[in-house]
């Protein structure tokens, strides 16, 4: 069956395929990058640009192709990064302009739009350099025009466009001497070919290798970097940089005044601390992953630009030794088959202990996140897609994430049910109430009921002086928060904890669960357990090592 007409919905799908395919191959595109400046970031830049375009499209999917095109152009412009990213945004700006009034388009319109995109892109430059993405786009558009007059089959047209784009890409070294010298094809051109290949794959329903892969995340990049390290470091003693350090810098304008932030400069500067370096940034946050021998200095460096959040430092020598030992003792286990289940459970947690806790009670996917680092809608959608299930329950465990989870529900293909849990204890309670043998509605009701029965409290410290809910709080005081409201504050953490527990526990209470944060000491835990046992002899106490940051304790009382 041939496709002769494309509407907004199909075009949106084409964009997603193109974006995904480029994303999957971004690293390869990076490796080709020698022109105009050999800094190896073309793939990353193009990927970030088109992902921004795709995101905008995803939020405004509709049948009118002109409007979808406009969303794409807007998203691309907003997210344009690097030379090739800007060119890409221009190509599709022209493309979209050409189809803006059209409800649907056919081969002739499509070819015309490609052509118009190329014209727009060429206009924005004084001296177009041939042998780049511009040339590839131009050749492909010319071919499209030629073919469009002979066929009305979009698939045939796109096939020819891809073929010509590839041929043109092969010719780029003949046009641009620097490419020939290094022996590569143009990176931007290659990026565009990947986008077109994605378009084609959508049209003929073909499976491109890895087309379903989600957008390259920091995690994946980190994994690749780690993998590289594993290959090179065979002996524990050979590990030159012993600490795997990951953190985010939340850029602060006042600090940027004296230290303007520039991603490349930052990458250069920080590279002297170690290897396996990854730096990803947007306007607000810089994510850094580095293997270093002096993690402290790396952090100090990062701090020059803003506040550090979500830090993680691991001793790789120790890890390596324990991996070696494990490999000696445990035989390799077969990967269990991912079989489709009826229900999937997705939850959000902060801290490895809480993650383990959730996994132990049946969560399929645990998204890292919580206060100060809310996962995006996209993170949640990705997590949902990882669940091999038709129906997925999502537990946001944070007031601020509920909305994102609801958005994820709207865009996800699977049936998604959001249980609006506002904190970890509620999430745990709701998840424990889950029964795989009953219908969705019934599950939902019992889970929400269970969630409402839990009283939750948290102990954290104040970051500044404030007055709230009739309490005067000084910086570094410990605050007890009960169900979102600050109820106690004290200089002493033990006192604050006890006061909070006094408010939470009443005669109907049966179980108190304590999630110990990464900043809380064992003695303190013992002291609190003792306090509960002395004062409330009927109550059972359970302690878990939640390892959550920021919150010294999370209490739940049932």
């Amino acid at each position, binding site marked *: 069956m041939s496709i002769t007409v494309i509407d907004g919905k199909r075009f949106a799908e084409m964009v997603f395929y193109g974006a995904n395919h480029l994303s999957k191959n971004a690293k390869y595109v990076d490796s080709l990058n020698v022109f105009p400046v050999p800094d190896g970031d073309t793939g990353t830049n193009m990927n970030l640009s088109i992902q921004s375009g795709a995101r905008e499209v995803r939020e405004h999917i509709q049948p009118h192709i002109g409007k979808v095109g406009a969303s794409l152009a807007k998203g691309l412009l907003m997210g344009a990064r690097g030379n090739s990213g800007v060119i890409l945004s221009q190509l599709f700006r022209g493309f979209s*302009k050409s189809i803006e009034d059209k409800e649907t388009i056919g081969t002739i319109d499509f070819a015309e739009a490609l052509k118009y995109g190329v014209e727009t892109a060429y206009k924005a430059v*004084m001296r177009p350099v041939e042998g780049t993405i511009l040339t590839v786009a131009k050749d492909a558009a010319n071919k499209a025009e030629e073919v469009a007059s002979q066929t009305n089959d979009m698939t045939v047209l796109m096939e020819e466009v891809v073929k010509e784009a590839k041929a043109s890409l092969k010719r780029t070294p003949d046009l641009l001497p620097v490419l020939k010298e290094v022996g590569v094809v143009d990176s931007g051109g290659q990026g565009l070919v990947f986008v077109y290949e994605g378009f084609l794959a959508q049209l003929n329903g073909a499976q491109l290798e890895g087309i379903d892969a989600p957008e390259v995340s920091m995690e994946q990049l980190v994994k690749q970097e780690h993998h590289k390290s594993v290959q090179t470091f065979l002996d524990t003693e050979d590990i030159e940089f012993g600490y795997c350090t990951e953190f985010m810098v939340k850029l602060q304008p006042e600090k940027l005044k004296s230290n303007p932030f520039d991603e490349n400069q930052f990458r250069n500067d920080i590279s002297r601390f170690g290897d396996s370096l990854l730096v990803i940034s947007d306007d607000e946050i810089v994510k850094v992953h580095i293997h270093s021998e002096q993690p402290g200095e790396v952090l100090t460096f990062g701090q020059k630009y803003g506040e550090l959040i979500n830090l993680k430092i691991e001793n790789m020598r120790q890890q390596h030794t324990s991996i070696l030992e494990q490999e000696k003792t445990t035989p390799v286990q077969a990967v269990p088959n991912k079989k489709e289940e009826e229900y999937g459970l997705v939850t959000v947690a902060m801290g490895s202990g809480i993650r383990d806790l959730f996994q132990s009670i049946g969560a399929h996917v645990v998204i890292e996140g919580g206060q100060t680092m809310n996962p995006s809608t996209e993170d949640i959608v990705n997590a949902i897609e990882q669940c091999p299930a038709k129906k997925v329950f999502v537990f946001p465990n944070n007031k601020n994430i509920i909305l994102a989870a609801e958005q994820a529900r709207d865009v996800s293909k699977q049936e998604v049910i959001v249980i609006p849990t506002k904190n970890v204890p509620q999430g745990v309670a709701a998840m424990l109430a889950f029964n795989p043998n009953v219908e969705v509605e019934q599950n939902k009701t019992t889970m929400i009921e269970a969630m409402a029965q839990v009283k939750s409290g948290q102990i954290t410290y104040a970051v500044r002086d404030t007055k709230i809910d009739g309490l005067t709080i000084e910086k570094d005081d410990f605050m007890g928060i009960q169900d979102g409201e600050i109820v106690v504050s004290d200089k002493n953490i033990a006192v604050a904890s006890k006061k909070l527990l006094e408010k939470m526990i009443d005669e109907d209470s049966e179980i108190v669960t304590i999630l110990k944060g990464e900043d809380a000491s064992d003695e303190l835990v013992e002291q609190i357990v003792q306090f509960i046992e002395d004062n409330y002899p009927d109550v059972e106490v359970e302690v878990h090592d939640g390892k959550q940051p920021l919150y010294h304790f999370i209490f739940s009382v049932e």
Partner: protein
Amino acid sequence: MSIELKTKYGQIEISNDTIAQICGGATVDSYGVVGMASKNQIKDGISEILRKENYSRGVIVRKEEDQIHIDLYIIVGYGTKISEVAHNVQQKVQYDLEQIIGLKPDSINIFVQGVRVTTP
């Protein structure tokens, strides 16, 4: 004023004009830039895009206490992301200067003097 590089054989002097030409060349090679503009558009009465011979009007090389600053006056194409285009120019200029004359400027400032709107 010129840039002096000392080698063991003697001195290399590179005139400001040369640097301006290199910067200008690198700038117009960048995507999104439709041309160099004059620093003093009103005074010079040149509102048009500068020709190759006049790049130095749009490229100012300043030397302050051993630090080299470069100011570039450019016109960009309508509909491009100006911050990104400017950033690309900075990178390209820095790279070219380093490659060609081994000069590391301390700052490269971009002044966007205009946008060229092309109506189709």
